[in-house]
């Protein structure tokens, strides 16, 4: 099943996890300590984020550390920028049209 990166970041807990590990790599237990929810539920979110390739895992001794795939986050950013760009271009064109219409009116 294809996991959608936008589904991943649409959830508030998963966004909070992203913000947490953007600073530093963390173990699942350390991440769970930041939430008033069960470890089980945090692991579920970590699994989804991993499936979306937003997280990478590193083994250090017996511990697993999660860190953020910055490149993957850039995809979201790129997508947002495209959307913004469409509106910017569209509205700059409207500025020109309005300018012409105003001149015609005079």
């Amino acid at each position, binding site marked *: 099943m294809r996991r*959608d990166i*936008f*589904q991943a*970041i*649409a959830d*508030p807990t998963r*966004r909070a996890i*992203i*913000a947490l590990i*953007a600073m530093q790599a963390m173990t699942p237990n350390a991440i769970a300590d930041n939430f008033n929810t069960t470890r089980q539920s945090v692991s579920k979110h970590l699994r989804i984020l991993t499936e979306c390739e937003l997280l990478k895992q590193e083994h250090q001794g017996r511990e697993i550390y999660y860190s*953020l795939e*910055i490149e993957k*986050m*850039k995809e*979201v*950013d*790129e*997508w*947002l*920028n*495209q*959307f*913004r*760009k*469409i*509106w*910017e*271009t*569209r*509205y700059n*064109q*409207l*500025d*020109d*049209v*309005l300018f012409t*219409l*105003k001149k015609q*009116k005079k």
Partner: protein
Amino acid sequence: MNDLLFDFRLDKSLKTAFINREFDAELSLVWDAFTTAEILDQWWAPKPWSSKTKVMIFEPGGRRFYAMVSPEGQERWSVQKYTSISPKTNFKFLNAFADENENPELPGSEWDLNFSEENGKTKVSVSIYNESLERMEKMIEMGFKEGFSMTLNSLEELLATLSKQ
């Protein structure tokens, strides 16, 4: 660049996009630009795309059936069904992608456009609600991938946008 306000953001669920913009023109002119087919076609499609309106009946229950035409001549049809109109203040429509025979691809998105004038400048606030995220993605993918050079902002900026609200 000009100093007119431009504000773009998504809500936290990523289902609603908000676009606010000021125009240096009086309200009635801006209203006409959004509600008249001949004027809409001059600016709606980001160049090098063009907009071609086949049907436009601007009244509650009416519709605009139009295509975004690529530089190669490829047509992407959409139909916008007007659900409510308060002249020079607000109008709403349901937007759906369609085939060339006007068969809509549901579900669509819900658009809400507000107009207000202050000191000779007109502010337009648009909100677009998409029930499904995939559809929001599709809105971008439909034809717009080409033709836009994009700049990458930093991750921090993205996170700031998402956490601001």
